[in-house]
């Protein structure tokens, strides 16, 4: 093998491993969300992430990948590479996916599709416990297309925001902010869950059902994020740096750590309790925020970004609730607000030398004193905000008019598991079984062991009644 081929081999190994880690984040979202919602919806909430991955994988293969990264498009959308063939996917650095120079086009698909699936997963967090099942299918398709367009803008050299030098290393804007925008649109159109706000609009707590699940979800996400950010180097060499992805892993890790500490501290101070779900949300918020910055900033800046993001998680969740939006998972705060923070923070803390090495934009305010990069970041947020929010709101609004997007109140009260899927997520806790949990004596097993042992018993005493 030539050294060039070896470099491709090493880069492909790294990118595919990273893609696999990101794919696993679906399990993270499944458990984060199932844990923060109620038992009666647990099966539905968890399993929907399998559906999300399925829909995103197919739509992205058919058209999304071409829209995002196909050659011959314009500043707004890619122009080729739809339903790619094996030949196309085995080729390296060739049309229609010439942008991927150091890995086969198939590796490019694998890495990008799991990002699309993560963005789609975020959407459902704020729409949890009350959305009709068909919406997952239909809006899943729509959103994957919207996502692909925006990723073209920012991550493909033809993209207009890419051309402006917007810095979004692994997608604080592309993946998280976009997902949160659609989530917000959905939460607004759906309205709050039954009982979330009382007559006076005072918010009620609707506790999730399993904090261990939430912890598992967060640790899986932290784990997967090491594919998400470091993998975004798309290879083993970055500019003139070998193994740059290791550095990206480090900034990602210290930011997440700071997010945990930041959130638990703020929660302790503000809420007078070290709320576990807030601490866990803080980790996600920090990871979201450092996603845009990971390759551009110094470790100390990553820590600052994480600490602030942790604080944003706590306050943001309360704020969203204050304005009467019901977001069971905190997606709007954790992916939206933290995504905005991370995108802007990159414009502030980007180290000139690193930006140069990445050949994207320039140094941030802190180092250069110039607002240029920060402005570019803000512009990107504005453009994406308008486009993705209106597209999502429009699509969901049309669906609401056409067929409705919210389940009937009785379905919501009974729970989505039994109402929509015919079976509880935890059958033994819901099917009334006198024999107790996990015995054979289920109602449907009537007719077993009805033999009995007669024996004379005393006549009814007269004093009764």
């Amino acid at each position: 093998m030539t050294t060039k081929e070896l470099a491709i081999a090493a880069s492909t190994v790294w990118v595919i491993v990273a893609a696999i880690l990101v794919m696993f984040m679906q399990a993270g979202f499944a458990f984060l969300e199932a844990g923060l919602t109620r038992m009666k919806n647990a099966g539905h909430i968890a399993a929907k992430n399998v559906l999300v991955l399925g829909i995103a994988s197919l739509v992205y293969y058919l058209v999304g990948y071409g829209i995002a990264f196909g050659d011959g498009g314009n500043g707004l959308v890619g122009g080729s590479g739809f339903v790619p063939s094996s030949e196309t996917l085995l080729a390296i650095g060739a049309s229609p996916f010439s942008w991927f120079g150091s890995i086969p086009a198939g590796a490019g698909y694998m890495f990008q599709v799991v990002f699309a699936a993560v963005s789609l997963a975020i959407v459902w967090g704020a729409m949890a416990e009350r959305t009709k099942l068909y919406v997952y299918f239909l809006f899943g398709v729509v959103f994957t297309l919207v996502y692909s367009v925006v990723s073209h803008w920012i991550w493909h050299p033809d993209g207009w925001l890419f051309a402006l030098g917007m810095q979004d290393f692994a997608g604080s804007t592309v993946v998280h902010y976009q997902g949160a925008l659609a989530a917000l649109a959905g939460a607004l159109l759906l309205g709050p869950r039954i009982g979330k706000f009382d007559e006076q609009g005072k918010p009620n707590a609707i506790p999730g059902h399993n904090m261990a699940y939430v912890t598992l979800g967060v640790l899986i996400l932290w784990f997967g994020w090491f594919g998400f950010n470091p993998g975004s180097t798309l290879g083993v060499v970055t500019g003139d740096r070998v193994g740059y992805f290791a550095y990206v892993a480090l900034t990602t890790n210290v930011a997440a750590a700071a997010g945990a500490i930041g959130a638990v501290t703020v929660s302790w101070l503000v809420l007078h309790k070290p709320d576990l779900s807030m601490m866990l949300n803080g980790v996600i918020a920090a990871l979201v925020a450092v996603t845009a910055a990971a390759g551009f900033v110094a470790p100390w800046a990553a820590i600052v970004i994480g600490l602030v993001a942790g604080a944003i998680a706590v306050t943001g969740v309360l704020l969203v609730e204050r304005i009467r939006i019901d977001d069971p998972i905190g997606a709007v705060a954790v992916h939206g607000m933290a995504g905005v923070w991370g995108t802007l923070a990159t414009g502030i803390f980007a180290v000139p030398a690193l930006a140069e090495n990445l050949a994207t934009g320039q140094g941030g305010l802190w180092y250069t004193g110039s607002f240029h990069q920060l402005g570019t970041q803000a512009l990107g947020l504005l453009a994406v905000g308008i486009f993705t929010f209106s597209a999502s709101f429009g699509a969901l609004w049309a669906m609401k008019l056409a067929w409705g997007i919210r389940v009937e109140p009785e379905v919501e009260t009974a729970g989505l598991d039994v109402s929509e899927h015919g079976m509880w997520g935890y059958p033994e806790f819901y099917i009334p079984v006198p024999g107790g949990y996990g015995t054979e004596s289920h109602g449907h097993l009537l007719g077993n062991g009805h033999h009995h042992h007669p024996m004379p018993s005393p006549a009814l005493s007269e004093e009764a009644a």
Partner: protein
Amino acid sequence: MIKVEAVVLRERVETVIDAVEEQTGHVGVTVVEAIGHGRQRGITHEYRGRIFESRFLPKALLTFVVADEIAGTVVDAVADAARSGGESGDGIVWTTPVYNVTHTRTGLRLEAVERV
């Protein structure tokens, strides 16, 4: 005193308790999760293609130990508040006389304590 027992739909429990408090001022109730079987049909479930029915439905069993004179009002209050307006499954209410009703904390008769 009189013990008023009632089998009600679980989602009516708080409504029933509020009704009793409003109409009689009586505070004090013990609730147990129950499952019931009556004129009403059970719930149908589906699992991996098999349809099956449970003959039982979730209910709650309420126990109010009240002064003789308000027992009647309590029964009415419970029956009214427990009525869902639905097809079936609203349950029943009944009374039983009880004796030696002792209030554990004070060791006094409950009547005495309540009079306080």
